[in-house]
């Protein structure tokens, strides 16, 4: 049996593509505003098989968010749909069904009712609908999770805009164009956490 999960840990199962980057930043900023800790599969390193490492990361988090808003067939060179997100969602559902006190999962979508067509086995699941906007992501983070002294969505949006405006500089400094790279994710986390501590009622985390 793996150790107990981080009670603030949230495994983020999101598409790693350029069009998604604003929503990706919104997830990181929004979760830190509620003092939750996002985790991404790209942060894990090691020699173990990738799928095993992802499963360990899911097990180490109390919550997970599975964003299925980009279910379209890829128009990139591969021309094939990406199955990683549904695969990781399936692994998570199995884990949560076995140990419901250890894990709670959420499905996120940009359009209402589309989930019923793309994954009808999930009928009965209420997805969080973010409408494909950063504001929608922040709003839905607040709808999914509550914490004492949480910030308002406009205040979160303010922090999000600042981080998003600095993303290109962070990418440049890390010598990459990929916002999902481990080094960029690390810095987005650091910046989001620091801003969240700064703006939280009552000052830094205690």
């Amino acid at each position, binding site marked *: 049996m793996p150790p107990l999960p981080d*009670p*603030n840990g949230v495994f983020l199962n999101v598409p790693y593509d350029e069009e998604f980057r604003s929503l990706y930043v919104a997830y990181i900023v929004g979760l830190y505003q*509620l*003092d*939750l*800790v996002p985790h991404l599969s790209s*942060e894990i390193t090691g020699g173990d098989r990738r799928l095993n490492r992802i499963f360990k990361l899911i097990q180490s988090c*109390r*919550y997970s968010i599975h964003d299925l808003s980009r279910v379209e067939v890829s128009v990139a060179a591969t021309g094939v749909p990406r199955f990683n997100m549904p695969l990781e969602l399936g692994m998570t559902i199995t884990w949560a069904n076995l140990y419901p006190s250890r894990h*709670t999962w*959420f499905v996120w979508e940009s359009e209402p009712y589309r989930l019923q067509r793309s994954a009808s086995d999930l009928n009965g699941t*209420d997805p969080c609908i973010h409408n494909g906007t950063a504001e929608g992501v922040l709003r839905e983070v*607040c*709808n*999914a*999770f*509550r*914490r004492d002294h949480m*910030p*308002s969505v*406009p*205040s979160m949006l*303010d922090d999000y805009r*600042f981080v998003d405006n*600095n993303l290109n*500089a962070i990418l440049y*400094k890390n010598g990459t164009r990929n916002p999902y790279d481990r080094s960029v994710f*690390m*810095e987005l*986390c*650091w*910046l989001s*956490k*620091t*801003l969240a*501590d*700064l*703006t*939280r*009622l009552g*000052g*830094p*985390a*205690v």
Partner: protein
Amino acid sequence: MRKPIHITAPRPTLEELEKRFRISEARKKELQALVDEFKAMHSIREEAPVNSSEPEKRRKRASAA
């Protein structure tokens, strides 16, 4: 609609994050400069003669701390 989950776990600290991710001191200084810029931006906004919303008040208190 699903009921929101009320999180009661202790808040994570920046130190915990820094243990998880090792960011160089030089790079941390650069990121801190961004944070200072953010603080400065909000100080400027506080002086603007507009209706002060609650988030702005909170920022003012946090900046003053």
